[in-house]
């Protein structure tokens, strides 16, 4: 198979399967071999599952032969972040203390994808425990630092590092990641792929590692916005096994979104000053494209809350409870990043009143965003304000000294939108020094179709999402 296959969107692969240009078995074999050969070079592969997928692919080929079409994901290989359980196989959560952990159940999202005929060919690497303790090095992972296909001396982002690298490098057509606060948006931006964080409760978390019960979301990383819509439609839906489930379904129907020139999109002009000068031209061009689409640009500021303290307290209190045994047993010291281990220990010191205060403020945050979305339909901001750092660069390094603007703009959009449970998407909007730059959109709850429609229109007008990283041999 050629690179055209490895970098093709889902719809194209499915069409070619139906035309019998290749079989599902052949497709799984080709992607599986590529994932097993190149995945370790990016530290992206946690567990190969190609042999199991090949057996399953024979059934899919039988269905295709009999024209039993089950939808656009039928016969499409994919990878899943290694925090999703797959019965009978190791699920390490990217962390040494859980290296031998095996569950006897499979995550709901993987069962749902199996029902569509898509084929799990590998578990993908991640930052240990999804970075819940706060990590300061890219190497905070059982599989080593996630390496970026655009420059392997740089980080793929976290905590869904493997899904970001694997999609960008054409090792899988799509992958499932998870986000508590930034873990889909960040690797999508750094790796130059399209990543969708669904509304809290839209996708079942059953079978996924819990980091924060009130913040965790599962979502896709793909080549295009359209692919994200197709995958989300397959994995969304109510689940009685997930106490946070909203009980809602999702139908990918961008055709029913209001005309894009009727949509108002909020932005903070000061974001340009916050951004690294190297990425400013890409951001300028991206904003110009949104204007060309006809979107009504509205200046705004994010509501003013202590975002960092809120997100750290909520994740900290919930993760300390979840990992209490790991922490008190001392096994937490087996984590690769000592700052993460110490971070988790310290979270045991968060008091009940502090957690409750954060959750009470969160009620106000939700109210504030409801007010924000009375006047606008979407918020736009840089997904990250700089390109990805070098893998040996401390992640708590404040970067080059530059004067910071007085107003924060949207610099807290990732924690803010996660605290409010809002959906978001990051898609490539340009390059700086050969590295991808991502643009982020955020919408009101359950308005994923708005995000996808705008991102898809952007991708009709640009080709950043079609660029391919340099080939590794």
């Amino acid at each position, binding site marked *: 198979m050629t690179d055209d296959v490895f970098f093709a969107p889902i719809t194209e692969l499915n069409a070619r399967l139906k035309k019998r240009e290749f079989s599902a078995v052949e497709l799984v074999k080709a992607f599986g071999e590529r994932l097993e050969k190149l995945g370790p070079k990016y530290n992206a592969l946690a567990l190969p599952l190609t042999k199991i997928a090949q057996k399953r692919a024979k059934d899919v080929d039988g269905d295709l032969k009999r024209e039993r079409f089950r939808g656009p994901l039928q016969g499409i290989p994919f990878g899943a972040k290694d925090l999703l359980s797959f019965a009978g196989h190791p699920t390490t959560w990217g962390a040494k203390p859980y290296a031998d952990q095996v569950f006897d159940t499979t995550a709901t999202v993987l069962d749902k994808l199996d029902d569509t005929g898509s084929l799990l060919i590998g578990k993908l690497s991640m930052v240990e425990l999804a*970075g*819940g303790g*706060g990590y*300061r090095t890219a190497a905070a992972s059982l599989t080593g630092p996630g390496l970026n296909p655009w420059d392997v001396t740089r980080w793929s*982002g*976290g*905590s869904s590092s493997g899904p970001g690298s694997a999609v960008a490098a054409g090792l899988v057509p799509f992958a499932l990641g998870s986000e*508590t*606060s*930034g873990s889909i948006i*960040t690797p999508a931006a750094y790796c130059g792929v399209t990543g969708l964080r669904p*509304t*809290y*409760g839209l996708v079942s978390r059953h079978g996924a590692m819990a*980091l924060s019960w*009130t913040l965790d979301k599962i979502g896709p990383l793909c080549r295009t916005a359209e692919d994200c819509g197709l995958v989300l439609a397959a994995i969304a839906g109510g689940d009685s096994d997930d106490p*946070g489930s909203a009980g809602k379904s999702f139908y990918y129907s961008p055709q029913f979104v209001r005309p894009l020139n009727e949509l108002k999109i909020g932005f903070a002009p000061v974001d340009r000053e916050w951004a690294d000068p190297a990425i400013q031209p890409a951001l300028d061009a991206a904003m110009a494209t949104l204007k060309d689409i006809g979107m009504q640009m509205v200046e705004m500021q994010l509501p003013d*809350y*202590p*975002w*960092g*303290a809120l*997100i*750290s*307290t909520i994740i*900290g209190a919930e993760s300390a409870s979840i990992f209490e045994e790991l*922490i008190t047993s001392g096994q937490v010291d087996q984590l690769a990043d*000592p*700052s993460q281990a*110490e*971070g988790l*220990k*310290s*979270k045991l*010191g*968060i*008091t009940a009143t*502090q957690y*409750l*205060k*954060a*959750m*009470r*403020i*969160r*009620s*106000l945050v939700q109210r504030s965003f409801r007010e924000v979305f009375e006047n606008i339909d979407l918020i736009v901001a840089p997904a*990250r*304000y700089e390109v990805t750092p070098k893998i040996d660069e401390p*992640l*708590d390094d*404040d*970067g080059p000294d530059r004067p910071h603007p007085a107003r924060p703009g949207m*610099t807290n959009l990732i*924690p803010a939108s996660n605290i*409010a*449970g*809002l959906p978001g998407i990051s898609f490539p909007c340009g390059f700086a020094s050969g590295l991808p730059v991502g643009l982020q959109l955020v919408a009101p*709850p*359950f308005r994923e179709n708005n995000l996808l429609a705008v991102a898809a229109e952007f991708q009709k007008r640009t080709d950043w999402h079609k660029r391919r990283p340099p080939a590794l041999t």
Partner: protein
Amino acid sequence: MKLTRRELVVVAASAAAASTLAQTPPSQPQGERDFAREARDNVQRNGELLAKFGIPMAVEPAFQFKA
């Protein structure tokens, strides 16, 4: 969770209490960063930031978290 370098500076993680673990910090070779102390300080700072945030008594926590 991923915090930017900028956010990590802003984010003071929170609060209180020297837990049992905090009472017996591991010895730290000179010149190396004391991650335990930094983490506890962050928890402390976050608690202080939240404490300063005024909130009406009637506001309940977002436990029934529906987006």
